[in-house]
């Protein structure tokens, strides 16, 4: 998974480099270990900067131009230079050479890439070319800033950051081309909506709208759904910051159990799930989330998290909460069990690393040291989202592509 961004000014008095920079910070929850910007200047040259750093650490002082693209991700080196331009991709492509033709013949390339990807390219001629995969697995939206800028981005969050207005999501299978003189959109492939469930439960930011849903509302509803499925007698509900907080709010409201802020943060809000190194992951969580004693001491606690991969981080969290005097600890997960990897680039590891693919609930509870553990049911998820046009590959092993 990655955050991709494109900005074009209709008037070249604009220098959009800082807009790209801040826009990427608004996307770095989608990947922060590699980032880059490619920018087109008045002389029709493209300058590219990419580094193994988070977008906020990208040095952009020398970048100056009226249009450009940006990337925040984990594995790949984007923006990639292609014939007559540069490109950023969200998704996995086996042979990136194919992207060399994207600017000349976008439709042909889309036909040849047999993978669900979204991309944004910039040409030396001053065109932004953006495409969203026909399943809608990778999100993509379009917005504008007054009479001056067009913005295309994985999520509206980057538009909010730069003061632009989110206009709409790009349809699955839709190609959008923006230049100074027009915006053209073309439905290249019929949408076969199969939205990524992880976007809903974990990936997208809570101030986002993705896959036709306001993420915050949806996650509060998941919390309420958990309350219906697993009403547990307890003294306090605690959500693991930050992604699980809306679930906890929904659960607390539904059952009238007070919500507590059980943790405070140390360091920057990097996302533990995105870290590839297991050691760093533990350090990340323990450093990041410090439990608060007076919020848990002597209480029966419902601890809600958005997902569980190996269980290591949750085990540590529970250990720490017990140490501070939690009487009971019931774990609820705001998504169905993860049992299989994602071939489309979402950071769900392979089956042997996934605790819920290998152990039953009783054993998991024992590993975690929890009194009980429950997952949101698939049916519950469908009820909350309101449709079944979802990719549930990591939860069911059935993949849409």
């Amino acid at each position, binding site marked *: 998974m990655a955050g991709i961004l494109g900005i074009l*000014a*209709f*008037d070249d*008095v*604009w*220098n959009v480099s*800082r*807009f790209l920079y*801040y826009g990427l910070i608004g996307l770095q929850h989608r990947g922060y270990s590699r980032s880059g910007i490619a920018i087109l200047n008045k002389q029709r040259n493209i300058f590219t900067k990419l580094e193994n750093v988070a977008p906020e650490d990208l040095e952009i002082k020398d970048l100056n131009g009226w249009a450009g693209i940006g990337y925040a991700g984990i594995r790949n080196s984007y923006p990639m230079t292609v014939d007559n331009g540069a490109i950023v991709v969200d998704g996995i492509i086996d042979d990136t050479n194919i992207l060399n033709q994207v600017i000349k013949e976008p439709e042909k390339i889309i036909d040849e890439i047999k993978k669900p990807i979204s991309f944004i390219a910039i040409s030396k001629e001053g065109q932004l070319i953006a495409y969203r995969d026909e399943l809608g697995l990778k999100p993509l939206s*379009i*917005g*504008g800033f*007054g*009479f*001056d800028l*067009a913005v295309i981005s994985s999520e509206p969050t980057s538009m909010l*950051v*730069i*003061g632009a*207005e989110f*206009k*709409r999501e790009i349809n699955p299978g839709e190609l959008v081309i*923006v230049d*100074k*003189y*027009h*915006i*053209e*959109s073309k439905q290249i492939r019929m949408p076969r909506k199969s939205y990524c469930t992880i976007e809903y439960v974990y990936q997208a930011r809570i101030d986002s709208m993705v896959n036709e849903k306001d993420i915050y509302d949806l996650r509060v509803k998941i919390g309420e759904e958990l309350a219906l499925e697993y009403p547990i007698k307890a003294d306090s509900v605690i959500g693991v910051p930050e992604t699980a907080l809306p679930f906890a709010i929904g659960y607390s409201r539904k059952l009238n159990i007070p919500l507590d802020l059980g943790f405070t943060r140390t360091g920057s809000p990097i996302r533990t799930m995105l870290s590839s190194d297991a050691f760093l992951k533990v350090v990340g969580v323990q450093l990041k989330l410090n439990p608060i004693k007076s919020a848990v001491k002597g209480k029966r606690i419902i601890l809600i998290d958005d997902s569980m991969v190996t269980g290591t981080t949750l085990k540590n969290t529970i250990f720490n909460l017990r140490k501070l005097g939690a009487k009971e600890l019931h774990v609820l997960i705001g998504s169905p069990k993860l049992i299989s990897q994602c071939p489309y680039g979402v950071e769900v590891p392979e089956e042997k690393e996934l605790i819920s693919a290998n152990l039953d609930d009783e054993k998991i509870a024992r590993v975690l040291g929890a009194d009980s553990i429950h997952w949101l049911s698939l049916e519950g998820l469908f009820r909350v989202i309101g449709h079944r046009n979802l990719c549930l590959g990591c939860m069911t092993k059935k993949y849409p592509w």
Partner: protein
Amino acid sequence: MKVLLVGDGARENVLAHSLEKSTKGYKVYALSTYINPGINSVVKTTGGEYFIGNINSPEIVKEVIKKVNPDFGVVGPEDPLFRGIADVFRQEGIPVFGANKKCARIEESKAWARELMWKYSIPGRLRYKVFYTIEHAAKFILEYGGSVAVKPAGQAGGKGVKVIADLEAYLTQDKREALTKSVNDIGSLYNKEGEPRIIIEEKVDGPEYTLHVLTDGKTTIPLPLAQDYKNAYQDGIGPETGGMGSISGPTELLPFINSEEYQTTYDIVKRTIDAIYKETGENYVGVIAGQMMLTELWGPTVIEYYSRLGDPEASAIIPRIESDFGEIIEFTATGHLSKARIKLNDQPSIVKAIATLGYPISKQMASGRKIVLDLDKMKEHGCMVFFGSVALEGMQLITKGSRALEIVAIGDFREASENLDKCIQYVNSDTKLIYRTDIGRTVEYQIEKAEIIRYSYKNREKRGILGVSADWSPNGGLW
């Protein structure tokens, strides 16, 4: 009765059409800079005559008046009004639908309009500053705080407005730098000896709408509201235009403007007409419009005034009027507006403007292109077609660089936009066509936006602080 119509765009095509439809059997004569195919057809059917010449030249207009000897005149666009073309009619003793030069100043000079609003305490006014030099304007932009709109101090064909919301401190510098660079362009758009060149005013946000008011100097009649879509490209993205489309209705309102706001807006425009009289000593005859925005600062807020019918708003409004609009034009011109009644088709309408590639950034690129259309098929799909910046040259339609066509459909918003989509298929060109796919399709979003704004301005009203605002910055201080 003979009518002489001055102008050449889609708005004048709509006006000509109403005169043609009237039961009064008007003979329509017209003066345009090129042969507008729509006006041409009306002139032919009604037995008038088409004159080609400079519509801004008092001498030429006087000549044509002498030739035609019309019973009344209609001046469509703003430029002839600014040049005193309506005055020429009156000097010749011919009643005319169109504001005198002095009255049209409400549109020609944005600085004068704002001064008037402050002098007469007309509600819905914004804080502003005028600048005589580009350097001073640029300095102000760099030094002062707050979100600003930078505009040419006078009417410049809807061009040159830069609006900067400065809510993200980390981007302030970049936004202000871009603005400072554009000040040169903005300053070059209105350059009259002894007058300010640039206006900077506080930036507000909200759904926009326009209220047109007919007046014969004694009676006023408000027309139904319309909204125009300013951004050039689909989904409200892209450079500013004169308007790529518009909607009107249902009823006299819009889905996001309530009747109380309509009334407040009407009051604002009426007070403006009074203020113009007090300042100039002249009665306003014709149409005056408030181009409004619903803002948290005031509720109904004036962005600009028009001294004529808006284009493409006219194409959305007039086709919905079921009473004899041709006659209403005559009543306005001749001082009998009290006899007029507006009967409205309550169903909404949608207008889409179509231009050729290049508009609005490069007039040259958008000019001289061929357009072909199947009028009969478009009518079959329930659309009306008005011709704008496109001339009949020989047997061909050749674009003149601005919006070439306006097509109109009446019906609920969904149905009307679907009809328009079908009609657009019958328009072809030797270049790409530029039009918006979202017009009439974002009403829900605007209802929500208006609702949010309503909380704030109602709250201000209660606290007695409507219109009270200020900005402060360490460098510039308070303004």
